């Protein structure tokens, strides 16, 4: 019976239904705030539970899209309401539904003004994120893809820090540039193929010259989201100004939109252009890994440092995707999921101490371990996951990307592997300055211990990071068929695979 349910639509729009609930809450400010928090948490938690249905029902051996829904939308124009998931998108849907309740929980006490509107923004954001990942129609994808940014603008611009306007504006400029170009390309694709149906577009052969332009257009949009060097400078500012939960979702899910886009559009639809541009992407990614790692070393703001580390980690993702072999793509996918968990946790780590001391300056901290020993354990674990310790999820992605990269080009592997050293340097340095040493001030000494709510956020993240580190097959098996599909598609288009393994 459950097979006939439009399960993806349900998951996608359930948070939006929660928004309606939030709108009808009445009472004085405190009541509204209190009820809004609870409604948002329950709605998102319930959405997560429902999303487990697709995890359980997903057949990792089956090719193509599952839980597919297709309805007439704009007549016989080739534009339809089309949803479905495969091994590439399913993990992202779960990641989104998993992180949203944690993010809402993370803002429990730190957000005190306009709580209702804040929660509305978050639930709206969740709908848009899920919708983006499950869309199998290019127009739908575009709408969701762009709409995701509206609540994020608001979250940064309204509930952000002192320079929130600047950060939001920067975000806007970068994104606008990318979106316009992508939209133009989508139009061109529709003209050429006569449909916006993604599976059909994948099998449509665009002329080689056209592929180049289309690739550039999409690249402009995706590269900003990843973000790739040199269009990354919006990210540190956005993170620094965003509230903790905003950073968690931004790093955890929104950064993956770019990588997802490359896998869903660029590689299967523009195979020749992908091959042609791969060297350029390798160069940009390597610069991202080395340059931003060094920049991270120079930061005095905790959030900014972790933001720069995200850019470096996402450099691995783009390297993996464009090495265009099984290990590279699997590694990139794995790295995205792992980074989604680890970076969300790291931003929460910053949030925990920020809530207590109201500063992100590294120099204001020192000796926190002595005051909050259990927090130190979680932070240590996530720090090690971030530097790719084997046994945590961080290792699997990096290792596979390196395997893929070596097969594409040994220089690439060599430069990418420097990330192992640089990543360890800035993360350990951060940890050392914040956590080790003597307690530096009376303020630090009086920081209160961890609360149950905070354990409730750390524990699931820790368990998952450890689980994927020890048994990554849970994820790799799910992705395998879909990655194979992309590779077969590339081979069928005649792209000389760098190494046909």
């Amino acid at each position, binding site marked *: 019976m459950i097979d006939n349910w439009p399960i993806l639509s349900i998951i996608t729009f359930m948070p939006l239904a929660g928004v309606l609930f939030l709108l009808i809450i009445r009472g004085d400010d405190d009541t509204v705030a209190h009820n809004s928090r609870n409604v948002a948490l329950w709605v998102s938690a319930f959405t997560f539970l429902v999303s487990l249905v697709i995890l359980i029902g997903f057949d990792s051996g089956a090719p193509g899209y599952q839980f597919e829904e297709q309805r007439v939308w*704009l007549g016989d124009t080739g534009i339809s309401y089309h949803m479905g998931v495969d091994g590439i998108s399913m993990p992202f849907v779960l990641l989104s539904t998993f992180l949203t309740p944690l993010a809402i929980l993370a803002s429990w006490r730190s957000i005190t003004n306009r709580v209702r509107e804040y929660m509305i923004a978050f639930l709206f954001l969740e709908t848009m994120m899920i919708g983006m990942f499950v869309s199998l129609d290019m127009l739908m994808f575009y709408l969701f893809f762009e709409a995701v940014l509206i609540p994020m603008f608001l979250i940064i611009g309204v509930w952000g820090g002192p320079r929130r306007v600047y950060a939001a504006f920067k975000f806007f400029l970068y994104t606008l540039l990318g979106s316009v170009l992508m939209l133009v390309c989508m139009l061109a694709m529709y003209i050429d193929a006569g449909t916006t149906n993604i599976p059909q577009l994948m099998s449509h052969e665009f002329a080689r010259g056209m592929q180049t332009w289309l690739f550039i257009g999409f690249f402009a949009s995706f590269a900003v989201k990843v973000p790739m060097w040199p269009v990354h400078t919006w990210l540190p500012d956005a993170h620094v100004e965003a509230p903790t939960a905003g950073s968690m979702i931004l790093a955890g899910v929104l950064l993956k939109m770019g990588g997802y886009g490359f896998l869903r559009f660029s590689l299967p639809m523009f195979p020749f252009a992908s091959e042609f541009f791969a060297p350029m992407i390798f160069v940009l990614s390597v610069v991202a890994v080395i340059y931003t790692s060094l920049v991270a070393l120079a930061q005095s703001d905790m959030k900014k440092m972790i933001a720069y580390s995200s850019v470096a980690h996402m450099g691995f993702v783009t390297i993996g995707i464009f090495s265009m072999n099984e290990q590279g793509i699997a590694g990139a996918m794995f790295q995205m999921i792992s980074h989604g968990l680890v970076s969300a946790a790291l931003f929460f780590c910053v949030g925990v101490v920020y809530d207590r001391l109201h500063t992100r300056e590294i120099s204001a901290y020192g000796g926190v371990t002595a005051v909050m020993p259990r927090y130190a354990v979680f932070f240590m674990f996530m720090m090690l996951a971030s530097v790719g310790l084997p046994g945590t999820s961080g290792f699997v992605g990096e290792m596979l990307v390196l395997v893929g990269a070596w097969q594409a080009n040994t220089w690439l592997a060599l430069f990418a*592997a420097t990330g192992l050293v640089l990543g360890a340097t800035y993360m350990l340095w951060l940890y050392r300055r914040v956590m080790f040493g003597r307690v530096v001030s009376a303020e630090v000494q009086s920081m209160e211990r961890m609360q149950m709510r905070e354990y409730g956020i750390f524990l699931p993240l820790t368990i998952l990071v450890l689980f994927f580190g020890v048994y990554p097959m849970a994820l790799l098996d799910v992705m395998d068929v879909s990655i194979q599909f992309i590779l077969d598609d590339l081979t069928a288009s005649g792209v000389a695979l760098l190494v046909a393994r």
Partner: protein
Amino acid sequence: MYALIVFLPLVGSILAGLLSLNNQDRPAELVTVTGLLLSLLLSVIAFAEVAIGGTPVTVDIGRWIVSGDFAAQWALRFDTMTAVMLIVVTGVSSMVHIYSVGYMSHDNARARFMSYLSLFTFAMLMLVTADNLVQLFFGWEGVGVASYLLIGFWYKKESAHTAAMKAFVVNRVGDFGFALGILAVYVLFDSVQFDVIFAQSSLIATTNIEFLGQSLPALEVAGILLFIGAMGKSAQLGLHTWLPDAMEGPTPVSALIHAATMVTAGVFMVCRLSPMLEYAPFALDVITIVGAMTAIFAATVGLTQFDIKRVIAYSTCSQLGYMFFAAGVSAYPAAMFHLTTHAFFKALLFLGAGSVIHALSDEQDLRNMGGIWRKIPVTYAMMWIGSLALAGFPFFAGYYSKDMILEAAYAAHSGVGNFAFVMGCLAAFLTAFYSWRLLILAFHGKPRASADVMAHVHESPLVMTFPLLVLAIGAIFSGWLGYELFVGHHWQQFWGDSIFILPTNAALENAHHVPTWVKLLPIGLAASGVAIAVLCYAVFTGLSAKIAALFWPIHLFFFNKWYFDELYDAIFVKPAVRLGHFFWLRGDRDTIDGFGPDGVSALVYRISGACSRIQTGFVFHYAFAMLIGVVVLVSWYVLRFKG
């Protein structure tokens, strides 16, 4: 049952970790020590079955990372080499666990300490039982983290957490090579599994690999990359700088991790890969030279240090050099032999030093010791045994293993072999010298500690001296017991398939037939080293200072550890930070933002002058732009289909 050897310490570590949340120190000690002793017992059984009985076993656990042809399994491999390591690791670790109960008794985070120790042991056991390179890497990084945690155990101490971070980062430099080595091996063999690699090494001995635009001999490239990893972990010249600083950790840690087990992981890896490295003669030469250089370098620095633990640390570094050049001349069994004997006597020396430090109220400076040998006779005797074994006096453990290495280096009859032989002999002389310098300064002469400290000097409790006695037995007898088995004429029978030596690389076999002077030289050098140390520090007490003053440039050079730290600071650390600032301020802020968003926004401000609307305008503009897009799309459709 074999899997229990590996996982008992993990269980102990987790339990102790949980107990540490409530500061339940005693139960944590109990559970970890029990876990280790059980693990040791099982290891002995495994050794009897696997090594003596000659029945290698592999325990499959499951898939770990499988993607396409890349397949790394979780599996535990038990062959002779693993069995030897099991004895070493669980043996020393259980003694260190017991010793720690006494040594750390004044610390208020004992449960955490015991948890880390057991965690380390688990990682080390995963390392030695790995059946593929990726799992080896798992153990490799695992011991690295445990070492990081333990060096920085006293995290409030600036020097401790600085040293912890340095250890991790320097090791990461080595891991960089290791990781690339794994990739090279995978590309060559389509596998990271040891069995596959070993079976196919001879087939691809002459294959070339594309590396960094060059076509190079494949196995040489893989071998050298992997060796870079070994250099990091085993503190070989160039990547050694972390080891002396690691002495900031509690002394049991130094004994277990930075003397007996973790630092020997590199040697273990090189020996483990013998079937592959045998076909990479150039890589072996590199290993020999680096090993020989380290042996002599560390010995020269050890001469001049005053921190008792640092002297022993440099000695460890030097002894690891011996093991490497033994492996480099294809005498892998000799390297493993020395690894084993060294584990016992060096752990003994460290724990003995710990006992001295403990007795002197945490004093580590040799200049503030002296005159205590009557007060702590057991410790004193233990330090003698350790030093005799280290210096290679006849019938002590080091005598068999170190001499075997020197003889093998001589018997290699190659340029690098001779180089290693000469360096090794010189280092043997220096080793004896600094060992007796340490003994005399620490125990003899007039007391240089304050009267207050001297009043408190006491022998350590039984819980600390018992492990010393056990290790002392090993330091005395392990050489004599192991000689025939490990490096005798029938070494092949003992090692089975775990070590492979090409018939043409017969250094080990020839080592049994070297001229008598080669056999006697190391003993003579060691004896003269002791004699000179006694002359300098006991008979003519002012002599050493005079010599140091006479050769001050050399002394300064040695005393400052050949200026490696200063050099690295100047060429790596400072430039990296400066470059980071440069990229951030000039790159991100001035260039990218300056010409990008900030420049554009400035332009927009100037043109529109509508600053006030900005705050509410973005979302609107944005939604508007999107809407326009949709409108264009729809109108295009209308025009096309209706028109």
